[in-house]
């Protein structure tokens, strides 16, 4: 599932991910455009037992959030 949270400030990107996690999917790709969102989304995903890989793409960050 692809989540585009660019332009949104916290807590909205985390809420987006939280809602998405209610689906049966186990892997999410997410775009955020600020470091506060990157940190908050990463923290939330890890607390919920997910792994996070983040890559910087220009001014944005691309995250892959998945179960090991």
């Amino acid at each position, binding site marked *: 599932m692809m989540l585009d949270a660019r332009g949104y400030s916290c807590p909205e990107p985390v809420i987006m991910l939280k809602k998405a996690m209610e689906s049966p999917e186990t892997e999410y790709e997410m775009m955020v455009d600020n470091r506060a969102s990157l940190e908050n989304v990463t*923290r939330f995903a890890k607390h919920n037992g997910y792994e996070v890989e983040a890559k910087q793409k220009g001014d944005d960050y691309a995250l892959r959030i998945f179960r090991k």
Partner: protein
Amino acid sequence: MNFASEKRAIIIAGLGIGMLAALLVLAGNPANMGFCIACFIRDTVGGLGLHRAGAVQYIRPEIIGLLLGSFILSLIRHEHAAKGGSSPLTRFVLGFFVMIGCLMFLGCPFRMILRLAGGDWNALFGLAGFAAGIGIGVIFLRRGYSLKRTYALTKLEGAVMPAIQIVLLVLLLAAPAFIFFTKAGGGPGAQHAAVFVSLGAGLLVGALAQYTRLCMVGGIRDFILFHETKLLMGFAAIFVAALLVNVAAGNFHPGFAGQPVAHTDGLWNFLGMWLAGLGCVLLGGCPLRQLIMAGEGNTDSVITVLGLACGAAFAHNFALAASGAGPSDNGKVGVMVGIIVVLIIAAVNTFRSQKA
């Protein structure tokens, strides 16, 4: 940054900020008011003559420092980014009424902690209202409340607010005849630390808050929403450090009556901070956080700060602000109107996004 070091950083920052806030009182700031974003924006607006309440007029260097501290550190960390366009006028109105709520309580969420650390138990009513207001805001957030996304803006947009701070600093230092200063003994506006002490403390706290993303509203909000405690720890650390310095310096006076720049009307302390708590959740951060994000180039936060400033001017021009004697009748009407307006904004922006 891993979680343990994130939490350690915010606790250390919170302890430093709480200590600085209590020390600013020893250096001359009003009691339990080392920092108060609402009060200091109100004083600055008064210094510029936008309201004429003679007791509260002084361009507070703390505000200038907070914004510039965040601006400088965000530049160094490559986090400065000019952006905006997320319902700016709605944010202005929310900022306006957050200020009306804060001036009913007589302090922003930051000062609420400092009042508690000084033994002012009236702030317990404020804290209860604040948490309750945040709780209502979280209900809207969970149901999809959003002011929609921001967009990238030109670099100049992100530099305007920091430039305005330099202008304010020049006006403070040059003190031309058209800038107002509360006369000695004339009220809280006359109580202040030396300009460079205040400015330095502001710069330091601004940088710490930028680094840790400290936010009084975020602490309670994230705990309710995600059971996340990082920001709440910063909140607690400020309280502990300010309390320790206050006790050591003999500035801890527990009780309800006779507290500095405070009143004992529990209901209106509760409702004032209820309005501020809900308004700040809808804005995405407390007044301190808005200043920090304004320094980072977020023009929506700049508009929010201007809304706070406009609210402060109206609060004194229309006699909405409470005083040590208690709330005014006009102020009670102002808070009730604010509660209605803010609830309408919350409902419309939740309902609309469900349809979209």
